[in-house]
């Protein structure tokens, strides 16, 4: 029993499995697509508005999927509301120091913002007859406020899961304070990638799309730096990744999800037309594997 690198190795795994991996992925997409869309609405060109609408179209369904995944993961799903209302007293249940408690509220509030922007996008695309919905579309002041506040909640939903993992006593998760940062940056990269894929499908060519390619490349580079920082900050606990999970992290996330897409964004001519699509698809795969490795590798040790 000698040489245990951290006191975290005596805790028990919570059996957070595939549902949580999927939640981390769809929650990241929801928060990430929303905050990219809100950035486009706040600082972008008017002709980029379809790209922002696309972000909201992805964000809202992903929030719904996220909430369902979280509820299904509970061993007593019908008691999901206990996270919001204390079941014994019927008072609001909120602990600012428990990321899961804050996260439950943030997901609810973010869901409302995502729903409003989703409806506004439908109104603008003439898919929904709701004249009052125009108020929520740019360039109105109300839409700016919603984009700003909703965007902050989007960031929160994308990142709090990493902080939640850090606020435990499991190896890896609680041995670095950087998982929240990693998840936020990764949420931006997978969200940009998914928006690029849809935009390609619709054969859009607005200037914002080229900007989105640049954002994805920059964010992947940042994500690479943060992931290396995570590994360094683990110190002796890094040995826990000397396993099949570590190999998957290296090949699945670093090589397939970061280095190859970066090379593809840098050398545009390699695969011709398919260059950007391939890069975006690989970023999505890498983002999924990242969450898979982080969730499962800390429970096997």
């Amino acid at each position, binding site marked *: *029993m000698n040489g*245990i690198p951290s*006191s*975290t*190795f*005596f*805790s*028990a*795994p*919570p*059996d*957070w499995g595939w549902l949580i991996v999927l939640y981390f992925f769809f929650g990241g997409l929801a928060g990430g697509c929303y*905050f*990219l869309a809100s*950035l*486009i609405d706040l*600082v972008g*060109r008017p002709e*980029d508005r379809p790209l922002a609408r696309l972000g909201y179209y992805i964000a809202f369904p992903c929030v719904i999927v996220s909430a369902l995944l979280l509820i299904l993961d509970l*061993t*007593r*799903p019908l*008691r*999901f509301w*206990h*996270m919001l209302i*204390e*079941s*014994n007293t019927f008072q609001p*249940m909120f*602990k600012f*120091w*428990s*990321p*899961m408690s804050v996260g*439950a509220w943030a997901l609810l509030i973010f869901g409302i913002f995502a729903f409003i922007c989703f409806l506004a996008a439908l109104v603008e695309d003439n898919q929904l007859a709701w004249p009052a919905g125009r108020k929520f579309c740019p360039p109105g002041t109300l839409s700016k406020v919603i984009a700003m506040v909703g965007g902050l909640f989007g*960031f929160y939903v994308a990142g*709090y899961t*990493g*902080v*939640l993992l*850090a*606020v*435990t*006593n499991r190896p890896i*998760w*609680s041995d670095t*304070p*950087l998982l*929240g*940062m990693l*998840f*936020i*940056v990764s949420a*931006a990269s997978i969200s940009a990638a998914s928006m690029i894929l849809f935009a390609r499908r619709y054969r859009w060519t607005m200037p914002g799309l080229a*900007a989105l390619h*640049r*954002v994805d490349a*920059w964010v992947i580079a*940042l994500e690479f730096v943060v992931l290396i920082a995570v590994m360094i900050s683990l110190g002796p606990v890094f040995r826990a990744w000397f396993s099949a999970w570590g190999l998957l992290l290296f090949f699945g996330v670093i090589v397939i999800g970061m280095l190859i897409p970066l090379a593809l964004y840098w050398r545009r001519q390699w695969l011709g037309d398919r260059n950007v699509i391939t890069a975006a698809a690989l970023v999505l795969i890498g983002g999924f594997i990242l969450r898979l490795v982080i969730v499962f590798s800390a429970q096997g040790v």
Partner: protein
Amino acid sequence: MPEPMGFYTDTTVCIGCKACEVACKEWNQLPSTNGGVNTLSGDSYDNTRRLDGIHWRHVKFIEQFTDDRKDGRWLLMSDVCKHCVQAPCLEVCPTGAIVRTEFDTVVIQSDACNGCRDCISACPFGVIEINPVSGTAQKCTLCYDRMQGGFEPACSKACPTNSIQFGTISELKGRAQKRVEQLHQVGEKRAYLYGADEKMLGGLNSFYLLVDKPEVYGLPPDPKMPTRNLTSGTMFSFLGALLVGLIGIFNFRNRGAAEREEARL
């Protein structure tokens, strides 16, 4: 308000009879493992394996023998929830199901728990698990129901060697300190108390007398609160959001005016 109550477990007098495990299961009506079909772990006399939702007491058997087995000793320890004064499980519980009682013990209210399992990963001792019958997180309650009636917990009542002792924390600490001194006098210099002082999670209301390093007993040498990472984790997340935001603003911003200016030149 009653005084803080807890357990003092003197591992040097434990004989590994598991009466505590049986008494606990009986009183708390905990189901058997695997429908009562016995499976052997192959790990000494320990077939309980670990604390979980249906095992709130677990007697550990640690065999320390030389290869030829001519010399050696048994370390026996009845493990249980530590009822930490600063309890990590209580700290993270998002439903308020985990509460501190009037006896300064930590109890999970089964009717409020929804099985999110945050407490399982927060407990540095690996005490909590889901009870498959209730579908909620469960652990030792320090027999809260018995204490409310003025009785001592089932395990300490059943312990035939007084390895598990129940009482007020101040009284137990005094008793434990005397026992350490006694052991030191008779030559067992390795004896010490684990969790009796406030340095460890504010003090463990279930503390131990051990004669080897904590990790030998499967106990963390330096258990910490989960929220130690809250501020740093949040700050780094803000930094991440800021950097992503700046990358976004820099690339998405409407540079129409500047670009037109450039084109004119």
